[in-house]
């Protein structure tokens, strides 16, 4: 959540006291070379993410059947047996199958939790930021409560008290991450609702719903998209931390759960944690690269060109 919050803070600061100072006076000037480099980051991110999505999509074809099946001799090193190119874990489960099917879970958790969080956060934040006044006050206090409770503690309570399954994990993560989006949305709405084009829309006679959906949201999207990208990454990390504490879904394989079981063998069979760990890092890294590039591309500094 952290980067997302950072964006929020930046966004809020940028519109805080003496907003003029934070508005760039001159446009960012960059050489072509670095623009390309920048884009190459996004390119790498997209390629990595694409590969992982492809992996998730083809998992049932390449590694059919139950990824949790005890497929072979336990604790085979990668490459030791070509039937299990990435080796097997302590129970003889195929690591490659786990990675491929685990990608599905990680991506599902990341995307679904973010989608839920964004949906909730945008709705609440939009109402608060657009209408202001008493309802805004109330919502801000409400958000504050969520920001005061250590998110991961709340997540653990939520997932522990309900039966851990993919969907409880997703809902739990969404419940602990919506507040960031809500804050950001609120900040955006507070700024944008005062824009002249919103006034213009209102003076033409549009209602609140139209103004929120057609005039403001499209303009509030860039920072939200950036934050959402980073939220996907954070959700994947949260899921893995939950699985590490043993609070994952036992009926599906996830990268975090693989690390959780593999860590007992961290000294002898380090590949059991390193491989899923590497995939988590790669995915989160790719998402962050994309988030970065999006941030550059969509940042308000450049919007006026």
């Amino acid at each position: 959540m952290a980067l997302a919050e950072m964006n929020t803070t930046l966004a809020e600061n940028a519109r805080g006291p003496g907003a003029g100072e934070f508005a760039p006076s001159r446009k960012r000037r960059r050489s072509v070379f670095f623009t390309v480099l920048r884009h190459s980051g996004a390119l790498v991110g997209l390629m990595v993410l694409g590969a992982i999505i492809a992996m998730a999509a083809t998992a049932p074809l390449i590694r059919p059947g139950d990824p949790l099946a005890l497929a072979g001799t336990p604790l085979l090193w990668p490459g030791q047996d070509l039937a299990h190119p990435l080796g097997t874990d302590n129970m003889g489960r195929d690591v490659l199958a786990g990675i491929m099917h685990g990608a599905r879970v990680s991506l599902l958790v990341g995307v679904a939790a973010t989608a839920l969080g964004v949906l909730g956060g945008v709705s609440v934040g939009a109402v608060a930021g657009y209408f202001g006044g008493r309802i805004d006050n109330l919502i801000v206090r409400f958000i504050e409560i969520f920001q005061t409770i250590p998110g991961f503690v709340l997540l653990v309570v939520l997932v522990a008290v309900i039966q851990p399954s993919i969907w409880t994990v997703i809902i739990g993560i969404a419940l602990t991450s919506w507040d960031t989006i809500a804050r950001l949305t609120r900040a955006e709405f507070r700024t944008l609702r005062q824009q002249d084009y919103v006034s213009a829309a209102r003076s033409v006679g549009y209602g609140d719903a139209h103004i929120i959906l057609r005039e403001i949201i499209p303009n509030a999207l860039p920072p939200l998209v950036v934050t959402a990208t980073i939220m996907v990454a954070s959700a994947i990390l949260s899921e893995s931390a939950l699985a590490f504490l043993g609070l994952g879904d036992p009926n599906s394989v996830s990268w975090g759960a693989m690390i959780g079981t593999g860590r007992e063998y961290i000294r002898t069979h380090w590949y059991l944690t390193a491989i899923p760990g590497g995939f988590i890092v790669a995915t989160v890294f790719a998402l962050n690269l994309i988030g970065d590039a999006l941030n550059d591309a969509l940042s308000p500094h450049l919007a006026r060109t």
Partner: protein
Amino acid sequence: MSRNRRILLSLRRNLLQAIPTMFVIVTLGFFLMQLAPGDVADYIAAETGAASEEGIHALRVQFGLNLPVLEQLFAYYDNLAHFSLGISPRYGAPVSDMIMARVPGTLLLMGVAIAVALLLGFAMGTTMALLSRRLPDRLLSLLSLVFYSVPTFWIGLMLIVLFSVHLGLFPSGGARTIGGPSEGWDWFVDRLRYITLPALTLGLNYVAIYARLTRAAVIEAQRHDYVRTAIAKGLTPARVIRRHVLRNALTPIAALTGAKVAGMLGGAIVVETVFSWPGMGRLAYEAILAREYPVLLGILLVSSALVIVANALFDILQSLLDPRVEVS
């Protein structure tokens, strides 16, 4: 209105606002724990390995768990009103004692983690911003992204394997050498050795965040007109950067640091587990598992108080850093 008076007023306002916030959090926590299957009597009965129905009932009566839910809640409020956090059913000890025994550990860990993260992050971010879009910037950007992408528990284990097991540089866990030096330089070195790895693990994510934020803030600050003014005054580049760029970049960083405290408390659970660090996060986790709602609520109360105090402090710090910021 003088600044001191403003700060005092804001402190009072923060405090007054904190009370309903904490009230809601405690109530929310209480109902969450009520929703959870099982209660502490179940847990104690199971933990002791053998129990009777009478025994469980006796436990429920003893802790008031047989009372209607709202009565339990009001009993808890009543406790709070008398400045008591209640008694832990499992430990049979006052919750406040248990929490206070853990607070210093968590505070220390978080404090050092924040300090490390700030220092490293600020240094990294400044370097990145000043060499913006050159090779060092690209490399450090990537590095910070990696820091940001690594799961905390994983990096913690890796640090233990590398620095404790292989290199023998730092202890693998704990907070100090038990029975070791209790004062002076030796004590300090000893504490430092123990806290290095956990603080680094907890702080690593934040190093990335601060680095990126600092970079953004410094680049942002560089674009400001007053930097151009400073150059026009004939200041040396070093002074321009120090006095007009970095100094002004501190404000958003202070704002973010305040907002990070809650997140760090959560992250402490994992780090305290991996490094057997005696802190609140671990206690919270155990309280959740054992359904000891007085303990969990106590922790929620204390940690939200911590967050609120930290936020208030960083608010004040922000207003000290930037006179335009009204203490909110």
